[in-house]
């Protein structure tokens, strides 16, 4: 049996769409494309904002001291989890601690693992000093109140394995003592161990044919916390003056500058995405308005007949809005759904592709984003109807019927 004989008013719109599946499908596709870009773009932008936010919270240090030439590498470690290994003389520890305005200094030893069986790519091993550390410590203190023995590690959120599992680096097994939450930063792909364990790992690395021999008393970087009466910029400047900037063999890196660089890049990206979305929105309204105009013109006789059958002007307009509303709703939901399906499970690929801290929004933010995207893209259909339906909202019905005949 064709069609439902027990019609209700809204079925008129549904029938009209169903019987023109190609036309309806095309319009739905257009709206879906819009909501896909709106939602997908804002989801990625939001994740990037979250990541940057997480970075500035996680960084903890005000200043980083690294060997000259490695200031770019340290950004790679922090932002993207690109492993590096380098070192400098440990005597810098004392010299930095003596600089006016420095409240705390802690050494770190960085080793890049070879391909480990836990992970598809090399990861960053970070040796830290539990006595003086103020960056990693706060995050693991609750999870790990006791000491971190030489055979134990703390892993970032992106490392496969749970507490109690064993991971192998340079042929030596380590037990996962704690696992950190995901932050969207390079820390997620890092493994933390105590200083002694890290030195032993560096030796293991050499024993396996590694190319970088780290002397026994060397450190890779120093993290610095500034006294609250001093600014990080001021202390950095003093360090550069004290240690003959450019010839000392070290670089003073401002942590704030790293974050600022990231948020600067982010702002450009977000502006670009926002512009693109706005353009697409206007374009969608315009295209739909034109398509609807053409359609209404072609359907004049149909509308004239409905008028002759006694549909009021108001309900005819309602019918037109109902049709565009259905198109808009189906398209919006499909677009948002598809974007979520494509973006949510592939966050690590996106993280790699954008090379910036990336952290997906919380449930609350997510719902807000969905609602905003749906609303914006849903508005397109009725708005286009409003722009194109002027002709049927006034004038004699008979004129419309006559025009429709020709």
């Amino acid at each position, binding site marked *: 049996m064709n069609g439902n*004989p027990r*019609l209700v008013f809204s*079925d008129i719109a549904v029938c009209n769409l169903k019987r023109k599946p190609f036309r309806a499908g095309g319009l739905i596709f257009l709206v879906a494309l819009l909501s896909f870009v709106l939602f997908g773009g804002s989801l990625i932008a939001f994740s990037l904002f979250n990541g940057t936010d997480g970075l500035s919270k996680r960084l903890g240090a005000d200043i980083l001291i690294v060997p000259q030439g490695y200031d770019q590498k340290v950004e790679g470690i922090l932002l993207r989890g690109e492993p590096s290994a380098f070192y400098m003389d440990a005597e810098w520890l004392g010299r930095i601690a003596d600089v006016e305005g420095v409240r705390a200094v802690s050494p770190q030893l960085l080793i890049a693992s070879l391909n480990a069986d836990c992970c598809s790519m090399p990861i960053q091993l970070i040796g830290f000093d539990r006595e003086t550390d103020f960056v990693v410590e706060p995050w693991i203190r609750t999870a790990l109140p006791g000491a971190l023995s030489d055979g134990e590690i703390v892993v970032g959120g992106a490392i496969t394995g749970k507490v109690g599992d064993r991971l192998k680096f340079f042929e030596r097994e380590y037990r996962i003592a704690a696992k950190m939450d995901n932050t969207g930063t390079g820390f997620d792909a890092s493994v933390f161990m105590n200083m002694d364990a890290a030195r032993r790992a560096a030796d293991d690395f050499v024993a396996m044919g590694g190319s970088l021999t780290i002397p026994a008393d060397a450190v890779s970087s120093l993290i610095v916390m500034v006294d609250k009466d001093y600014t990080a910029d001021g202390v950095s400047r003093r360090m550069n003056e004290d240690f003959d900037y450019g010839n000392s063999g070290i670089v003073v890196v401002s942590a704030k500058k790293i974050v600022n660089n990231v948020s600067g890049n982010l702002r450009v990206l977000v502006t670009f995405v926002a512009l693109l979305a706005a353009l697409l929105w206007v374009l969608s309204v315009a295209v739909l308005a034109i398509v609807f105009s053409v359609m209404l013109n072609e359907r004049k006789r149909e509308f004239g007949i409905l*008028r*002759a*059958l*006694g549909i009021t002007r*108001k*309900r005819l307009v309602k019918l037109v809005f109902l049709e565009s509303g259905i198109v808009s709703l189906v398209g919006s939901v499909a677009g948002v759904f598809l974007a979520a399906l494509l973006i949510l499970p592939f966050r690590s690929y996106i993280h790699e592709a954008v090379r910036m801290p990336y952290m997906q929004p919380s449930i609350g933010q997510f719902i807000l984003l969905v609602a905003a995207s749906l609303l914006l893209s849903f508005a397109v259909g009725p708005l286009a109807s409003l722009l194109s339906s002027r002709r049927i909202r006034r004038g004699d019905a008979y004129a419309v*019927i006559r025009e429709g005949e020709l």
Partner: protein
Amino acid sequence: MILEARAISKEYRRGDTTFFAVDRASLSIAKGEFVCIVGRSGSGKSTLLSMLAGLLTPDAGAVLFDGRDCALLGDEAISRLRNTRLGYIMQGYSVLPNFTVLQNVILPHVLFKREDDPYEKALALLDRVGIRPLADQYPARLSGGELRRVSVARALLPSPDLLLADEPTGDLDAESAAAIMRLFAEIAAAGTAVLMVTHDTEATKGVDRVLTMRSGRLAED
């Protein structure tokens, strides 16, 4: 009088000049009366009918339906009137392509809220015009004569007080046309006023009155 037209006119523009498609036409039809309008092509018959149906506003004069001046009714009231008390079969095809034959017939019923179920009545009407087997077909598959009969069934669904029919037998064979005429005569006998435009002089034989339209002027034969 169910319908009364008092000197209604419609002026159209053609190039630089204007002319009256309908020129001070007056008529009145009582309940149960069967009236035909004949006239040459272009004489203004369809224009007159659309004004009587309230789809076109006359430039002058007044249309009274059941004693009420249509010009004074708002869109809601005139639409309801068209929907519930008037059957209008327009010239040419007026079947909606996206609905089945049965859905087309039921369509007027869903435009205003009603309690009763039109289903049985619609099927009975399709039976009466002889196309019940086509109830579930879409119009694209129907012949011209079958489409015409769908419009007839649809116009009769609300049991209208007045039926306006613009060449309803245009593309029907003699036998089908005669059947439609019999149907109209029957509903007229049951109390519906019928005003029909036709070119078929044979068809006008049994009706109560025949009016002739000439260049917009309406005259009783």
